[in-house]
Structures are given as structure tokens and as C-alpha cells.
């Protein structure tokens, strides 16, 4: 999930395009962001582009609220996500030991 290879759709319509945009909007490559933006607009439409930008931007902010206040993941969520959190590498993030879950 965190690799540099071209993303696949992951079973979600236009998934690769959405991942490309989400990656570019957090990065520093203006040309890549412009290309990712145009790609979504051309294929999915302008409303899809603005809603994608809205979601990406909101989560870029909400991550900071979570990380700056040190809230743990709810126990119930930690329990039901334990297997795939390990599988996709979330448990290896620097903050995992600090803020893993409430339990």
C-alpha cells in the first residue's frame, strides 16, 4: 500500500486514480498533482474531483487532530481491525506504540 509502484484499483472503481490524487495532494510535485487532478476530472467529472479533494483535505487535517492530542483507537475498532492492521503495516508506524489503542 505504501510502495512506489503504480497503484491498482484495489477492487474499487477508479481506485488507482483516486490513490494517485491523494498521494499527489500530500506531495510536492505540482505537475503530478495537476495531472492527477485532470485525470479525475476527465474520467469521473468535476464534482467527483471536488469531492475527492474535499475528503483528502479533511483527512489530512483530522490525522493531525488525532496525532496531536494522542487519542487512542477505540478498543472495539482495534479488535475488529487487528488482522489487517498488521497485514498492511499500520502496526509498524512510529505512532503505533504510542497511540495503538485504548486497551
Amino acid at each position, binding site marked *: 500500500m505504501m510502495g512506489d509502484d503504480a497503484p491498482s484499483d484495489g477492487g474499487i472503481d477508479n481506485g488507482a486514480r483516486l490513490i494517485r490524487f491523494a498521494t499527489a495532494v500530500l506531495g510536492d510535485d505540482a505537475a503530478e498533482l495537476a495531472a492527477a487532478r485532470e485525470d479525475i476530472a476527465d474520467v469521473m467529472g468535476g464534482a467527483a474531483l471536488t469531492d475527492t479533494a474535499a475528503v483528502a483535505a479533511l483527512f489530512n487535517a483530522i490525522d493531525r487532530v488525532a496525532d496531536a492530542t494522542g*487519542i487512542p483507537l477505540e478498543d472495539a475498532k482495534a479488535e475488529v481491525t487487528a488482522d489487517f492492521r498488521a497485514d498492511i503495516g499500520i502496526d509498524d508506524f512510529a505512532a503505533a506504540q504510542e497511540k495503538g489503542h485504548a486497551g
Partner: protein
Amino acid sequence: MTEISYQNLAQTHNWEVREDITAAHRRAWQRLGQAGTWLTGAEKIAIARETRAALDCQLCQDRKAALSPNAVQGNHDHTGQLSDLEVEQIHRIRTDPGRLSRGWFDGLHNDGMVEERYVETVGVIANMVAIDTFTKGLGLDPWPLPDAQPGEPSRTRPPAKRQLAWVSTLAPEDAIGTEDETLYGGGPTAPHIYQAMSLVPAEVRGFFDIAVSQYLPGAAMRDFDNEYRAINHAQIELVAGRVSALNQCVY
């Protein structure tokens, strides 16, 4: 006075921004210039300006590239309007949130950080990131900051305690019967992200005013029989998950 509008995108590119997003951004910009709970309007504008300046800070870039942010010492490139303590808080949250630690937070506290101001500052940063990332995503320049309005902070503190997070939070059961009872919809439980900034309830209300327009209202999040946006639930969560993975957010 800045008037936020995305109408030109519809005219020039046929990219429609929902009116509820525009309205939420306008309300956020209005709040930004006004005195809050622990910060004056001028302090909030200074924090907003510093949030943007952090992206050009060489120390932050060097730390971000290092194996550990603690391995790189130096001085931040900053606007000169805030204390070193506030600059460190703002820059680290803006540029490297995934590696914030309890030790870092306790260090700020030991150096004189005021917890209530810290939480309100987190709220200002979050609002700025939500709106600035949105404009960046659409190829727009950041909106000019609003003018600071006169006025004093209210300095009202809910019965929050150190119980859930690094910062004090207002538990849902402790909100019942207080002026902040509606913060969690009056219920006995609430997701931790709703409680995160509850030491300053106005910041919770302000941030989630943006969240329901840029993401989804609570009921819509769990309504998989209907779609509410131009991208569907699965696509929304894919974008959210990718952003959070890049930020190394474990929440």
C-alpha cells in the same frame, strides 16, 4: 475582507464545489479572525500564518528526512510572531504529525505550554490544513487570511480531565447536564476523535462543521444503501485511508 468563493472553478473548468463546502469554509474563515476560548483573533491569525510558514521551514524538512526527528537540532524558520514553544508545536503538527510522541508533548508541557491554548491551536491548524489542502488539490492559491477582530477570549473550561488522551478531554457522561451536552449529541458515548479537542468545545464544533461537508454527516457514514457524494462510500474511504497511511496516522 476575504470572501471565499469557488464559483470561478465552475465557470472555467466545470468543476462544481458543493455550496455546503463553500459555506463551511466561509464560517471557518469568519471564526478564524475572531477571539476564541483561549486565543485572541490576532493570535489565531498568527498561528494560521505560522501553519503555512512551516511548509518552508528547513529544520522541519531536515527532521522529516531524518530517521528520528530528535536527531536533528536547530532553529525553525518562522514568522517571528509567536514564542519558540508555539512555533515548535505548530511546525511539528503541520509537517510531521505521525511521529509526534507523548515525550514530545510532555516536553512542551514541562517548558510551559498551556494545555488549553495547545488544544485551541490544534484546532486552528486543523482548519487551516483542511482548507489549504482543498485549495491546493484544486490548483488554487491559498485564501488570504482574514483580518483579526478585536475581542477577548471567553476562557471557559469544561470539566475535562486527563483520562483518554495526552490532553484533557470531556467525557460524554461528564458533558450531560452542562452547556456542552450537545457536543456529543447527548449520548453516553462518542468516538475518540470527537473527544480529542473537547477541552475547547468550540474547536470540536468548528472542526466538525467543516468535516460534515468535506466528508460526510454521521448518519450518512453508516448508510451504505445510499450515496451522498459524487464519489461513493468505498471511494471516499479509499482516499481517506491513503491520506492517513501517508501521514502514518494509526487512529
